């Protein structure tokens, strides 16, 4: 069989019988070509979309939940409903100590303040943050550094500003590092500039200052605006959210069934929906692609069946000249596999071109819809193996059909 596959005559026969009716051979291939083109195109696009989501959320610890205080909706332990709920640093510490599966707990504060530099000014959101924030919500620093522990310890008057603020308060190409801006009437030295990016979770961050400095200048005490909780990889973020809220209700004397006392945004849950959607889309892609492939392969089988019918007499002649049924079958199966494989490889190549075209149309720049739309080599090989298997199976039908007729009947055929 191996010798047969490397025999020039085998391929001469395949070539002859395919070029005998070129139009039909090409039409036969269209089905499989189209199927694999769809498969590659769709899989690549789905991958591109996934990559684009991953890039968007890449800077965030997606397995996280934000919790903030609102007001109670149920009276409890002598407190009337409508009590303001205020989270504190000790709440955050308790969460970190008592709840399983937590990686980080990041307390945050925010305020709107008037910011001035020379003759330029504006009203911006000022966040009081720990260096930890950089771990769960990666700051893309263009220049300088983020807040560090010394800033916290010494309550330094330093600020990390977004590129938007930089554009508004500074001249073009001016070095912002070491310059002073006035926040709430106090001088702050700029130590870093970060790229805000496209996606923002929670209130918009314009200027980060050390948490302790924030406490001091706004007279916050232990109060915090909201807390960001990230789960360890694989931890159930929904469970963490429930546990944290229950703990907070206990600590703050709130009715356990009071659902309005704390507001929250579960990024993990939302992200899960997104990834679920992506997985669904990939499944759909495979389903559509494979189904189209099967349809294409069936079309090949169908046409080969017609071809065999037309070649009944030729097959009869060959058998009269001494071709064994095995030799006839082998030839037809090889033809079937060759057509499917040829069409498949061509489909993979054109599918690649389509991905290149998609990439240049939608894959360029920072806000691209598709990032690196591509299929892995493994997928290509799986597709090819499926094609070979299907081609063989479908080739067997006309092969058996061809040898089921007695040579004498085949010869009589006109």
């Amino acid at each position, binding site marked *: 069989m191996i010798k047969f596959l490397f025999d020039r005559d085998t391929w001469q026969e395949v070539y002859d019988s395919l070029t005998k009716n070129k139009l039909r051979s090409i039409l036969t291939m269209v089905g499989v070509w189209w199927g694999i083109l769809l498969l590659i195109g769709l899989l690549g696009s789905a991958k591109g979309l996934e990559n684009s989501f991953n890039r968007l959320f890449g800077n965030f610890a997606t397995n996280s939940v934000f919790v903030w205080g609102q007001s109670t909706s149920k009276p409890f332990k002598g407190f009337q409903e409508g009590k303001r709920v205020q989270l504190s640093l000790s709440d955050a510490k308790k969460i970190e100590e008592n709840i399983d599966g937590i990686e980080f707990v990041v307390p945050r504060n925010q305020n709107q303040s008037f910011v001035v530099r020379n003759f330029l000014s504006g009203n911006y959101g000022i966040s009081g943050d720990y260096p930890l924030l950089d771990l769960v919500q990666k700051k893309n620093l263009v220049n300088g550094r983020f807040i560090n522990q010394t800033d916290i310890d010494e309550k330094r008057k330093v600020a990390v500003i977004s590129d938007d603020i930089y554009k508004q308060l500074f001249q073009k190409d001016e070095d912002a590092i070491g310059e002073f801006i006035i926040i709430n009437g106090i001088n702050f030295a700029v130590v870093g500039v970060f790229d805000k990016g496209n996606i923002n979770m929670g209130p918009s961050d314009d200027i980060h200052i050390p948490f302790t400095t924030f406490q001091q200048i706004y007279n916050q005490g232990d109060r915090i605006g909201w807390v960001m909780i990230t789960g360890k990889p694989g931890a159930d973020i929904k469970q963490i959210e429930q546990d944290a809220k229950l703990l907070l209700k206990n600590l703050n004397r709130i009715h356990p069934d009071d659902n309005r006392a704390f507001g929250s945004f579960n990024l993990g849950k939302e992200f899960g929906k997104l990834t679920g959607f992506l997985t669904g889309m990939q499944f759909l892609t495979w389903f559509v692609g494979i189904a189209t492939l099967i349809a294409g392969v069936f079309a090949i089988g169908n046409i080969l069946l017609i071809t065999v019918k037309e070649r009944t007499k030729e097959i009869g002649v060959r058998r009269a000249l*001494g071709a064994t049924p095995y030799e006839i079958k082998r030839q037809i199966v090889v033809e079937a596999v060759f057509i499917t494989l040829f069409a498949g490889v061509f489909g993979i190549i054109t599918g690649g071109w389509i991905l290149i075209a998609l990439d240049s149309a939608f894959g360029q720049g920072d806000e691209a819809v598709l990032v690196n739309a591509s299929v892995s080599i493994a997928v290509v090989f799986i597709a090819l193996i499926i094609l070979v298997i299907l081609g063989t199976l479908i080739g067997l039908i006309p092969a058996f059909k061809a040898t089921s007729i007695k040579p004498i009947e085949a010869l009589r055929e006109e």
Partner: protein
Amino acid sequence: MLKISNLHKSYPIGDSSLHVLKGIDLSVESGEMVAIMGSSGSGKSTLLNIIGMLDEADSGDYVLDEVPIKDLTEKKAAIYRNKFLGFIFQSFNLINYKDALENVALPLYYQGLKRKERQEKGKFHLEKVGLLEWAHHLPSELSGGQKQRVAIARALASNPKLLLADEPTGALDTQTSHEIMEFIQQLNDEGKTILMVTHEEDIASMCKRIVRLKDGIIIEDAFVNQVRASEYV
């Protein structure tokens, strides 16, 4: 060379069956040139098909070159056909997308010969039928007589012991028929055993022996004085 005794064959037609061969006894020696004659329905083609292992007898013995031919699988039949027999058909049955040389070399392909060897042998036989310069022409570019000569070259290619011809001149005009017959006579002169089915008296008279069939039995089996086809050409 060939020995047939008490050969029977019937075809089912609906509920009944048509008894085509009703006990044929025939033996052919090496080097003979036999014409099998008969009106249509006499069973002459069936007899030739059974001899050619394209069809199987219901009962009776058939020995070809001291090999009993019975209980053939398709594979075995294919190998025997390739080894013992060369076929010449009325409608030539060349493969239309292969050129003359490839057609001639086809039986050699199924013998498992190497490409180079096939080309050489194919050319040799094409030259023998005088069509070497037509080697790379497709059948559609050849005349009827040329096609039949390519078919004869193909039948000869595997160097068979027995040539079977089914109305070899049936599709040709008289002039070409005589040319083909002259060529077949030459082959016989060189020692090939030839068995042909025909219903034309003048073609049959160019053989050395005429077997007449009627309603499935041999009614006459006689050696005749061969008429040389060259007399007509």
